[in-house]
């Protein structure tokens, strides 16, 4: 299963800005709440997080050390 951005539906005001900036169509508004459509094409550009004013969508990074 592809890792996808994280939605906090409590904070989503349904403005849809994230849907507009998502270039891989991974996001949709369903019942006025942002919903993730799983896709391997999400390249974690983080634009959805950048445009969200309410903090309802986030793209957390895992930080790991490269194995020698």
């Amino acid at each position, binding site marked *: 299963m592809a890792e996808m951005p994280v939605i906090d539906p409590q904070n989503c005001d349904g403005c849809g*800005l994230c849907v*507009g*900036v998502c*270039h891989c169509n991974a996001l949709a508004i369903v019942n006025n709440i942002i919903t993730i459509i799983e896709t391997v094409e999400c390249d*974690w550009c*983080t634009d959805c997080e950048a*445009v969200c004013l309410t903090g309802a969508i986030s793209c957390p*990074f*895992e*930080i790991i050390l490269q194995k020698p």
Partner: protein
Amino acid sequence: MAVQLEFLKSILYFSDLGLAELESIRKLVFEKTADRAEMVLLEGESAANLYFVASGVVKVFKTSAEGKEQILSIVRPGESFNDVPIFDDGPNPASARTMGPVLLYGIKKNDMEAILRDHPKIALNVIKVLARRVRHLVSLVEDLSFRHVIGRVAKILLEHIGGEIGRGPRLTQQEMAAMAGTAREVVGRSLKALEEEGAIRFDRHRIIITDKEALKEIMEVSS
């Protein structure tokens, strides 16, 4: 699609105007649509129009000679961009690119001057918009000039290394910005700089530290 009076009223510039005044301004507003990743303004070119975002999002940014991008602001519906050159007669100080499909409302520079002459009470709101812009940019200048954010971002990465894939703590750029005491835009630039230094690389939702010693050095030199 006709320019909506309600939308004009929601723009800070025109929020104090009555319907008759808004109607007279509406005649001077034109619509412009653009698809994703279209350049709307180019830095250095002469400024012809003031723009308001009606729907979608626009990114305003500067580009260095080496091609590095620094985001100055993300402009959302109801907000304006390209205000400064409209009023100081200079060229566009920054470029603007759409982050998705957008609808813009534009007013030609000469028309904006006429609007200000005909509706002087707009001036106070224009000053408020410009003052907010100055405050935002002063904060950004402070971050970029006086704070060694890259060192702090390096430190944050080193302090949050996870043991195994899928097990480590996870941080958003917003959280890193809060930890480093800076803006998200500055964290984005710092991460790109660390990638260019060869200290890290991005693998989708993972930041992989490829050279821990280099990262430590950046942290020590820049903190």
